[in-house]
């Protein structure tokens, strides 16, 4: 791009095959497109939020092959052939996931903007077995910034789901 000056030099594109929330998609994308922008702008999945676009806030957290990633730091092209789960994939039938339910019950949200990322991160954290204590939850949820300051309630929500999981 540096030596452009021609209109045609806007950035090349690639075809990317993604499985998102169980459905396959073949997308032709500007190479500069992040996974986050691909989800939001090409698949209309706006549940994943852009808080900083620099990997610092966690609002865009999704699962790629089961692992949590900040989707603003990943190019969509890097996800070719991989499986992505977003907040929309957590409750496809409209029935809240236990983590979502617990967030509502414990008021683990205020403006709600960081919430999809918090929820995805919490779901992954439980799967990672990192919810053994409040201290552990706090530490492993610290990649998800909540400017409204709902942290104590987020911890309470995760603690409750972890306790239910342990009881099962």
């Amino acid at each position, binding site marked *: *791009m540096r030596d*452009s*000056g*021609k*209109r*045609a*030099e*806007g*950035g090349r594109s690639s075809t990317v095959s993604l499985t998102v929330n169980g459905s396959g998609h073949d997308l032709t994308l*500007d190479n*500069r*497109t992040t996974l986050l*922008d691909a989800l*939001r*702008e090409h698949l*209309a999945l*706006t*549940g*994943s*939020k*852009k*808080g*900083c*676009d*620099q990997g*610092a*806030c966690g*609002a865009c957290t999704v699962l790629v092959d089961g692992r949590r990633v900040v989707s603003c730091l990943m190019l969509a092209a890097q996800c070719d052939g991989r499986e992505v789960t977003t*907040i*929309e994939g957590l409750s496809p039938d409209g029935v*809240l996931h236990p983590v*979502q*339910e617990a*967030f*509502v019950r414990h*008021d683990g*949200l*205020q*403006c*709600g*903007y*960081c*919430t*999809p990322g918090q*929820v995805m991160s919490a779901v992954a954290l439980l799967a990672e077995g990192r919810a053994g204590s409040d201290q552990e*939850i*706090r530490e492993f949820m*610290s990649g*998800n*910034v*909540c*400017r*409204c*300051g*709902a*942290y*104590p*309630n*987020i*911890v309470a929500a995760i603690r409750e789901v972890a306790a239910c999981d342990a009881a099962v």
Partner: protein
Amino acid sequence: MTMAEAVPAALGPGVDRVDGRPKVLGAAHYPSDVTLPGMAHAALVRSTIAAGSIVRLDTARAADMLGVLTVITHENAGRLQKGKRNLFFPPPAAPLQDARISYHGQYVAVIVAETRQQAAAAARLIEVTYDRDEPVLTLDDAAASSQSNPYFIDMKRGDAKAAMATAEVTVEGTFTTSPETHNPLGPFTTVAQWHGDTLTVYDSTQNPFHVRAVLAASFGLAEDDVRVLSPYVGGGFGAGLRSWPHTILAALAARVVARPVQLSLTRPEMFTGVGHRPSTMQRLTIAATRDGKLVAIDHEGTSTASMGHEAPTRKPPTRKAPLQSLLKAPDEQPYPITAGTAAAYACPNVAARDKRVRLNIAPIAHMRAPGEAEGNFAIESLLDELSYELGMDPIDLRLRNYAEVQPQTGLPWSSKALRECYTVGAERFGWAQRDPTVGAMRDGRWLVGYGMAGVTFNHYQAKCHARATVHRDGTAHVCSGATDIGTGTYTVMTQLAAEVLGLPVDRVEFELGDTRLPQAPQAGGSGLTTALGSAVHNTCVALVQRVLTLVSDDADSPLRGCTIEDVVAHQGRLQHADDESRGETYSEILGRHGLSELTVDGDSAPSRAEAGVIVGSLVVSRLGRFGRKLVGASHATVPAGGFGARFVEVRVDPELGVLRIARIVSVNDAGRVVNEKLARSQIIGGTVGGIGMAIFEETVRDPDSGRVANATLSDYLIPVNADVPDIDVVFVGGPDPANPIGVKGVGEIGLVGVAAAIANGVYHATGRRIRSLPITIDKLL
């Protein structure tokens, strides 16, 4: 109908946030989630100097990029009108009107392209040549112009100077706070669409009607031809109280390309584009008797502001007469720091005054407890110092000077439970276990400190309108054009309507975030619940009244001839208060009268006492004892804001300087708490903001260029989960009689006092009195 009878099934601690479900599903649509057919994307180019002017702008390469639709600069933007005069929320300077630059980050161009990526890439190709002036960037710069009494609310009573001269004990200190950036997590976004000469915008705002007024003025439209939608806002904290240039630019871009345009600020742009908490400096002296009775307070606060609209490039603005500049065209938000000083304690001699210094910095904005948080930090820190000087417990010192009446006017408070805040807080925290000796409490290598602070918060209420409809199916729809920035407005208004109408919460829908709805004030000043809640209450009472009017001579109605005092509303039914069998449902009434629905409009207004307190305080300031007599003769009551007490345990590693907050107890008199779950969240959130202010947050400006050097969320530190301990939130006090629903605002008070309590805890632990925020590691080594 009395409130005691309208049994609060709708109220109570357990009601979940009604907007919780869409938010956890990712289904709440914020402005940045809005996509319209044919929508283009805009990106901004910002100035890289803080003062001077643009000499040359080369846009050719950018304009030539694939997908670029237009590049707008001051050379082709056309004339934009300045927004209407507004004292509290001065409209922004019309963007891209000339070559002058008055801060680093000022917009110099906007690019519109088919995609976000194309617009962002093209923005990097704009080349700007500047003629750079020497910027004025710090409060203590000799070239900075300082204005005294800029807001006309300097206050005094008695003679502080004379009292100081003979006082037994005097403490003094200079306190500073750093600029902070609101950083709501949702980047502010505007989506603008024109239909002929009418404009619709989706906007991140706390003040939609103000945005509407500014856009209408900018483009020469009638306000009715502008519609602002903001049903979900990704946080505000004050950044959304003013209107900002990017909103105007989005509308301008949409008009130029004749397509809808989305303009979403980047995180770095959020540091210069939507305001910041200004830096402040305070000089404070407190004098007392040996036994702890305050005799004088002298408080001077200085805050920084941008150069404003008529920014000259080489020199700071001329020293216009302050009144003239205030009346002519306020161009910065008032930011008084000492406004609460005269109301905090019973002290016979007080002098409180403010100053404003203009710098080459981006415009400021009120940020959660603007001025109150800074002023409280100084006063509550210095009172702590005084308590050591006197060898007196800090709570006892505050109780010794408890303001039984509003001390500046001498008028009674509408309600005040600050004493309970202290006693309940001390009990829950275990204050009695505190060894007052500095450095005496340890836990292993950690020094342990207990600190506390008191809070007196101001009251605010503005005019507000609402509309309520009951449908034949027994549901209700209530609405007003307010915003819910995460505070719980959707939920609390649903509850307040359900309470009056006697409906279950799930039969009431509350709608907001649209300027086509009745006009509401900003979500700010901790005043929306009071204003909107009162409007919703009054409107729903009027709706019940209307229903009763409908059946007033209806022979088939058991409610025939009933007045509102005769009935209660319960489970969708109006019934006689003394015989519940005699009543009928809204559905039955509407059905029999062939109506599908019934709608009324209503409103609420602040009492005359609201403005009277400020006027009264100033009258006492000017006329002394005579003024006090005059004000006293009004027999008015002072509408009270919230009161609070903070108790904090800090831990300091003396070798590393690491400071951790171990636990916090926050007790607040918030009047009647409509929804304890959500009110608690507000206090928790405020407390977390207070932790940020106390130990993390500082917007760092490069001293040469004026560039914000830490404009990312990795460099600008805000509290993360691991920084926040358990926070014990307690509410005391009862319904405040100053408004029909008995509430006081809880949006901001939670933040106030946290910084002082932490600083006081740090002193208790270490013996180091930190008078400069944030308290970072370097200050503790």
